[in-house]
Structures are given as C-alpha cells and as structure tokens.
C-alpha cells in the first residue's frame, strides 16, 4: 500500500515538475519570439519611415533646384539683358559725347556695368542646375571661390589630391550644393578671412575638407541652424558622411566623405 502511494507521489512530483519546467520553457520561448516579431515590425517601420523621409527630401530638393533654375534663367534673360542694354546705351553716349569729364564718368559706369554683368553671369551659372550638372565639381568650386575672392573680404585656397573619379550628375549637384551652403555659412556667420578647400581622392572615396579661420563655435551648445540642417539632409541623400569640428576661437572644419562604390556602374 505504502509502496503504491509513494509511487503515485513520485509520479506527481515528476509530472508536476515537468509541467512547471515546460511552462517555464514555453514562457521563455514566447518572450523571445514576441521580442523578435516586435523587432522585425520596428525595423520594417524604420525602413518605411526612412524611405518616406528620403522621398520627401528628394521632392524638397527638386523644388529647390527648380526655383534655383528659374531664378538663374530670370537673372540671365531679364536682368542680364537689361544690364547689357544699359552698357550698350552707355557706349552710344560715350561715342556721341565730346565732354572729356563726362566720357570718364561713362567709362567708369561701363566698367561697373561690366562687373555687374560678370557677377550676375556667375551667380546665374551657380544657380543653374543643368550647368552645374554639366561641369565637373572642381570647375564649380573654382567659380564659387572666385566670386568670394572678388569681394576682397576673403582669400581662398583650393587643392585637389589624387585622381578624380566620376560622380553621377545628381550626386555631384547635391555635393556642390553642400559646399555652396558651407561657404554661405562661412560668409554669413564665421567672421573668417581665409578659406581652404581640400579634396582628396582615393581609389574608392572622396574626402572634402572645408576649413576657415573664423570665430568657431561650441558644437555641444550651438543648435543646428537651417543651413547646417540642409547640409546634413543633403549629405544623407547622397549617402555621404558629414562631420563638423569646431571650438570657439579656432575656426571650423567641415568634412564630407563620399564613397565611390555607388557610382562605379554609372561610369
């Protein structure tokens, strides 16, 4: 009797323990599966959000480029034409005038008009999407720096190391806009007098460094302005890495690293 009873108890212990252990294992598996499903769902959501953000940014950039393009055409076709006409009229006045003093003034005005026409042409070109896409990045940067030098408030050095490789027109345009925005920030906020742009090509990447000798700023304490946010967004658009180094009183260095691999096929 005792023997049978103890057997029953042993079965109860073994069976009960097995059930408890089984429940424990089931709980662990359920938690792992639940977390994994959650993770998958979250990752999918992230990808969708990222795609949506990229598409939105792309649309914004396209709108911006269209605006730049219209502005460029307007400057070239309208204001450019008016200035050319004014220069022509000045030439007619100069020819018909016999007063030496007036001639001198007309000649100076013609020179000023020449400068205005040239500047306008440069501005128009930098805004013209098709023009930027056609030219290589070096030429576009050269033009931008030349405009800065002409203001006589800035000196600028531009160096290229390594063998340049092909960058797709769309990426080139965005890269150029990033550099343009950086230079714009330097002109507006840095209080700099000297700008250095250094482009280094290696086999599979391009490193660009834009350094100024301005006031610098505390990265931790300064909130991103619209210009810097634009640079970050554009940088993400072309899958480049963007970094900014600055301390108060020591100037600012902005670095952009663009990988080549995406463009290899396009070449």
């Amino acid at each position, binding site marked *: 009797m005792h023997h049978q*009873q*103890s057997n029953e108890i042993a079965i109860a212990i*073994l069976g009960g*323990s097995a059930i408890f252990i089984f429940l424990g*294992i089931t*709980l662990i598996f359920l938690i792992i599966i639940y*977390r994994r499903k*959650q993770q998958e769902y*979250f990752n999918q959501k992230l990808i969708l959000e990222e795609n949506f953000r990229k598409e939105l940014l792309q649309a914004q950039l396209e709108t911006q480029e269209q605006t730049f393009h219209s502005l460029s055409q307007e400057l070239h076709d309208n204001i450019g034409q008016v200035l050319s006409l004014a220069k022509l009229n000045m030439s007619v006045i100069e020819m018909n005038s016999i007063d030496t003093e007036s001639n001198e003034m007309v000649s100076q005005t013609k020179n000023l008009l020449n400068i205005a026409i040239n500047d306008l042409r440069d501005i128009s070109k930098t805004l013209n999407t098709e023009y930027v896409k056609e030219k290589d990045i070096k030429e576009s940067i050269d033009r931008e720096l030349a405009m800065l030098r002409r203001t006589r408030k800035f000196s600028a050095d531009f160096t290229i190391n390594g063998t340049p490789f092909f960058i797709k027109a769309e990426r080139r345009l965005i890269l150029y806009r990033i550099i343009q925005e950086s230079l714009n920030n330097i002109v507006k906020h840095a209080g700099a007098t000297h700008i250095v742009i250094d482009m280094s090509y290696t086999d599979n990447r391009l490193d660009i460094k834009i350094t100024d000798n301005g006031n610098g700023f505390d990265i931790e304490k300064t909130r991103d302005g619209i210009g810097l946010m634009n640079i970050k967004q554009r940088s993400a658009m072309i899958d480049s890495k963007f970094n900014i180094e600055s301390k108060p009183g020591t100037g600012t260095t902005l670095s952009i690293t663009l990988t080549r691999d995406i463009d290899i096929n396009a070449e």
Partner: protein
Amino acid sequence: MFLWYIYILLLLLNLVFALIRWGKLRTPIKWLFGLLCWVFLIEIFRKLCDEQWKSFGTHLNIPIEMMFQFLYFYYLLNKKKRIFLYGGLTFFFTALFVAWNVDNDFFWQKNFIDGVFMDVCITFWTGLFFYELIQKPIRYNINIDGNFWVNCGNILYYPGTILLFGLNRYLESVNPELWQNLRPLNYFLNLLIYVLYLIAFIMDRNKK
C-alpha cells in the same frame, strides 16, 4: 556525488567570470554574485558537517538566499513594483514563523518546506521581471542583458523544485529509496540554473 562536484565547479566558474567581468556587470547581477558566494560557502559547510547540522545549514541558507534574491530584484525591478517585493518577503517570513510555531524543531529537521515558500516568491518576482521585459523599448537587446538569462534560470529552477521540496519529507518517510532516485532532478535543475547564471555573467554588459 559526481553531480555535486560538477555543481561546485559550475559555482566556482560563475564566481570567476563574475570577478573577471565585474566592471561590466549591472548592480543587480553584482548582488547575484553575493548570493553565489554564500551558496558556495554553505555547500562546503553542508558537505563537511553531520546530518543535523546539514539540515540547519539548509534552513539557514534559504532565508539568506531569499534576502539576496530580494536585493537582486530590488535593484532590478521598477520602483513601482517594490510593493510586491515587500509583500513577498512578508509572506515568506510569516510562513516561516508559522512553520516554526507549529514545530519548534523546524530548523533542525530535514525538510524543505521553507524552500517552497521561497520558490513561490521568486517565481512571482521572476514573472514580474518578464512582464517588465516585454514592455521595454524594442531596441533593447535581451541577449546582452544578463538579467534575462538569470531569470530564465529562475523560471525553470524555482517552479521546477516546488513539488520536490514540498513533498520530500513525506516521500522520504514512506520510501527513502525512491526519494534518493528523485534527487538527481534537483541536481539537474541546479546545474541548469548555474549554467544560465554563467551565461548571464558572461553576456551582461552595463551600458553607461
């Protein structure tokens, strides 16, 4: 006997890995190290002393193990859940007091009824941990959370030994041989929990 040596070796391995990775361990896991040091000492004590002192060692071990587990969960669980910890502790010591009141020789007898009270409390606290875990942010990686592995061990060991501890006295009195045959279940569960604790000590990474 052979299983006991493996069990002690595993305990030692746990302590060694805990010391090696001490700087990277989270506070609750550090309390677990305290628990394992205590368990190691009591196991050696139980090995060296006679039957009566062995039983006393068991009854001394369980409330102290309970206190270490309380501290472990105290630092692990959300502050709002501490009421359940105090509740568990009150239940355990009240049950212990009642058991001692019913039988004044309780602490010198060979039984594990206090182990059952502890099993119930720790199973409940472990359940609270898992409830908290499924509510954690999705980016939270459970693999490098030593507490996940610790509680996997807890959820298998403590409910798994409830019946064994609860019915041991009766079974040993009616059929001591059968009881001896069932003891490997306890050793097996002990090995399982210390393997999972070892994984916890190896995997845990304190993100500061």
